[in-house]
């Protein structure tokens, strides 16, 4: 198990170095750190002096090495628009995105597991057919359209819920949270429904398909023959086997949610990392763009590595094979 974890971490490091390399190449080609620092109203000589001082005339790989060592220490460059270190900007926007992803993931998990299991156990019942029908329509509607419809119905027509922004937030240990105020929660409703709308059908279908496959196996038939209760057979014997593929695929899918936050945040003007990213693109804020690339890349790598390790812990076969 230990060797397995070490291998995973080495792989994650390699992937991060590649992402860093891509990020650095972009920065090297597009970015102008001098302009980022002092603006454009500085003479050519002064700029050249500054370039030399910043080591911008060093070789590409020397600069890459410096970029990596800075990144490891948390220095991802300087956003000229915000006049702040890029990482600080991202970290100040991160809570909004993380809370949105968290609430959406909870919605997805809490709804997809019972619905997926139910429609696998009773595939012919009305509710199961309905769930399958609705889910294929669900995967066919782009997130931004769901978001627009939600705003149109619940904010514009019915005036039940706010249509944009995060509402009131509370600062808890430096974390701007919208989870602890009524207003913040009300603002979370529509964006989190919109964000989960794309993944929920996928999860229901995934859980249903896996569960149906498991229910056909010999060991489930044997579990019935042992005289176990339905609850035991379905929730322990079948569900535990369904869990393995759901964790692998599900983990990756939850990572993909981060991509969809860009769309959701745009429609709801949610002040998170995705919204910030698009603004950075419009402003050609290269440093911030690259910092976002590195941070999101790291997020993906961490999520996937954790999923792999959790999979290893849950699956007895993996554990033993590498003990």
């Amino acid at each position, binding site marked *: 198990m230990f060797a397995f974890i070490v291998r995973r971490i080495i792989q994650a490091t390699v992937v991060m170095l590649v992402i860093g390399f891509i990020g650095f190449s*972009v920065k090297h080609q597009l970015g102008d750190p001098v302009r980022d620092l002092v603006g454009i109203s500085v003479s050519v000589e002064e700029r050249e002096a500054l370039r030399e001082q910043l080591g911008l005339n060093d070789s590409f790989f020397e600069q890459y090495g410096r970029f990596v060592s800075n990144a490891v220490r948390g220095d991802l460059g300087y956003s000229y628009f915000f006049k702040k270190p890029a990482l600080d900007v991202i970290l100040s926007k991160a809570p909004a995105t993380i809370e949105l992803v968290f609430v959406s993931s909870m919605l997805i998990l809490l709804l997809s597991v019972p619905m997926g299991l139910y429609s696998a156990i009773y595939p012919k019942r009305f509710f199961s057919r309905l769930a399958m029908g609705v889910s294929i329509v669900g995967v066919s509607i*782009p997130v931004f359209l769901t978001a*627009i419809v939600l705003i149109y119905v619940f904010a514009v027509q019915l005036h039940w819920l706010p249509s944009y922004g995060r509402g009131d937030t509370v600062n808890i240990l430096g974390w701007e949270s919208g989870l602890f105020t009524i207003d913040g929660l009300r603002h979370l409703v529509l964006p989190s429904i919109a964000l989960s709308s794309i993944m929920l059908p996928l999860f229901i279908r995934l859980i249903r398909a896996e569960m149906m496959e498991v229910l056909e196996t010999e060991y489930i038939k044997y579990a019935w023959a042992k005289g176990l209760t339905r609850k035991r057979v379905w929730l322990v014997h079948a569900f535990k086997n369904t869990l393995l593929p759901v964790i692998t*695929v599900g983990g990756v899918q939850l*990572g993909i949610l981060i*991509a969809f936050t860009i769309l959701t945040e745009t429609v709801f003007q949610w002040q998170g990392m995705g919204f910030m990213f*698009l603004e950075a693109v419009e402003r050609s804020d290269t440093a911030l763009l690259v910092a976002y690339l590195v941070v999101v890349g790291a997020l*993906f*790598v961490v999520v996937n590595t954790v999923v792999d390790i959790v999979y290893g812990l849950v699956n007895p076969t993996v554990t033993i094979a590498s003990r």
Partner: protein
Amino acid sequence: MQTKRQKIKDSYLLYSFRRDKVAIVSATILALFLFAALFAPMLAPYDPYDVTSIDIMDAEIPPSWMEGGESRFFLGTDIMGRDLLSTMLYGLRISVAIGIGAVFLQAFIGIAIGLASGYLGGRVDAVLMRIADVQLSFSTLMVAIIVSAIVQVAFGVGRYEQIAVPLLIVIIGIAEWPQYARTVRASVLGEKNKEYVEAARVIGLDSKRIMFSHILPNTLSPVLVISTVQVANAVMSEAALSFLGLGMPVSMPSIGSLINAGFEYIFSGAWWITFFPAMLLIVFILVINLLGDWLRDVLNPKLYKG
């Protein structure tokens, strides 16, 4: 033997198609859409790219059956005064072109890598499959958004728009190859160990050729099933990019950029600019997904999971 089995399969495909109403309706709608996309220049009442025919005074005219609507603009006009129906037809054309182009690209890369990986085996296989794992663990949409953003910053919005179509095909197509690669690799490995390959080698035939002539038919149905879903995904990704302003420009809109352009006007009452393209997009993706589901049920190929 092979041809006989193929025949049975084909007739089974046709048989189950005739029995399935959803499949028939979906296929009909899809065929209509593809036809409309292909012949958009002939079907559309106006040419939305012809700047001279567009009058900004015609902007935001509602659909013809509504109050204020005009009979010459059946579905009304958009914010620039273009006939919405014509613009949608041209937009569908662009979306379909990008979607199919992207899928061809990813299928080509994926099948090539899958064949190489499965046939060569060893270290090459291990490295390629590791890369596929990593690639697959990143969201395609995320990669597409970041790459298109970088390209846009690098080239500037003006240049970007000129090369948008091929660029979007590459951006959307490049990230999804692992699905194909894994499926093809699995069937190469499956065939590699079969007796007939061994037998062919023993009697001195070119085992490679025999093997590939078996592999290609075997991979056909999984590739077909993957491809239908992938076209839907590619069209969706393009729409998402365009919605974010990273895709097709408003001057040459895809369905996604039409929705994006109309989005700001939805709340001021000009709902149709967003509504009709949105419905077109949803129905288009839905019928492809329904057909993909049906194909998967009928062909029941061994798809690589996880």
